[in-house]
């Protein structure tokens, strides 16, 4: 058997093995570490924000929010105390001025920026580094009240499931293609030795 056939073939089988490991890892389900539900009104021109959480590549957030009226939803890469100094508690109200100034000055720290109107929003976010995250609901209207009912969960995952699964889906067929000549040669050799 040619040497390059063996090298490429073993590279292929290693890729298949890594793909299987990644698939296995992606099948490990996420768990909810903390869940938090709230129902609140957002007066015109005001914001309702949650106190910041520390997220990391294995710890993200998941949110399901039902909106009545019009609300801008932001997920920001910053601690709540930095945008709204002097505020505290798990949820707090604040004037929109601080938020708008922050958004203008730090567009790179905006992770989510959705305008939602009488709808249900579902989303999750897991960062690729360790960071503070603050969830903010802003009512941009000048005269209409808005209402937000939401469930917020801190989730823990072993690996970013979709990303890992995609790599496995690409690596496994490539590995299989690389391994075919070597596997065929192995099979032929085994057959020959059995025949003789």
């Amino acid at each position, binding site marked *: 058997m040619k040497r390059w056939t063996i090298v490429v073939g073993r590279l292929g089988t290693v890729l298949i093995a890594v793909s*299987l490991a990644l698939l296995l890892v992606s099948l490990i389900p996420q768990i909810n570490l903390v869940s938090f539900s709230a129902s609140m009104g957002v007066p015109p021109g005001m914001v309702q924000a949650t106190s910041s959480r520390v997220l*990391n590549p*294995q710890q993200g957030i998941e949110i399901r929010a039902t909106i009545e009226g019009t609300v801008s939803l932001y997920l920001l890469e910053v601690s709540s105390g930095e945008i709204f100094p002097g505020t505290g508690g798990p949820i707090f109200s604040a004037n929109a001025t601080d938020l708008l100034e922050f958004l203008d000055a730090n567009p790179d720290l905006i992770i989510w920026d959705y305008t939602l109107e009488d709808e249900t929003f579902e989303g999750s976010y897991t960062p690729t580094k360790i960071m503070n995250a603050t969830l903010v609901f802003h009512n941009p209207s000048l005269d209409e009240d808005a209402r937000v009912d939401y469930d917020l969960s801190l989730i823990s995952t072993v*690996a*970013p499931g979709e*990303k890992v699964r995609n790599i496995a889906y690409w690596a496994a067929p490539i590995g299989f293609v690389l391994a075919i000549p070597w596997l065929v040669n192995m099979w032929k050799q085994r057959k020959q030795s059995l025949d003789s």
Partner: protein
Amino acid sequence: MTDMGKGKPFLEVLASAIHEDYRFPFLELFAFLYAAGTFVFASFGVNIAAIGTAPQAMATANETIAYNAVNSILSMPLFIFIILIFKNIAYGLGSDLEKGIVQTYFSYPLKRYGILTAKLLSALGVALLLFLGIQISALYVLAPDIIVPQLSTVLLTYAANLSYPLLIAGIMLLITLQLRRGGISLVIGLVLYFAMSIVSAIATVFAIFSESPLSLQILSAISPSVVLQQYYGGSLGSFWAPAFSEVLLYTGVSYVIVALVFTLGYIYFSRRLNL
């Protein structure tokens, strides 16, 4: 003989060694364990506030996060890696000496050091490539924004943690060459590996009670992961806060010792090994 001519016997020995060291499906099994282990053991549970207030923390928080992440994935996968290289050196080289395969290699138009290089490239080089390649790639998939900016910290953590296993591998090489069989050297290697955790604990206790870092400094010369741990916020109080240059110095010294042991192995294999 031309250089091209010398290359072929070297490749022949290397291919034969790789074939023996990584019989199907061992290579694949180790690749599977490294990939799965990296994700399963990874931990980013760092309290950012705690980093800022740690008395020993001379590193930046980002460096500490990268160090902790690498340290977390090194636990079980490093042990698996050590088993693989110990097996390759003790069993692989040992059985080649016992069965007379090395004597056959001596008939090749290849210097003795070339034969040993080919064997070590297979036993250590391929294993290291597989281990580091899979672990660093998996870390990149998991946390690119931590790993890419702190790549030097990641590599230094690996260098510090791999130094002691490589030293034991060198000692095992010497014992295998001396005894010409691998069983005993495999046992000695495993004992030395586990002894380090006991010695490290004794040295730590000694350092705490004597309020002198001398015992840990001596240990760091063969296992620089000790000084690195201390640099990234160790728990020994204020009597040893090593600077980054010290970490580099201890890591450098440990690799000089590793190189020395392997050089002895080369000298023995080239000049003293009578088969």
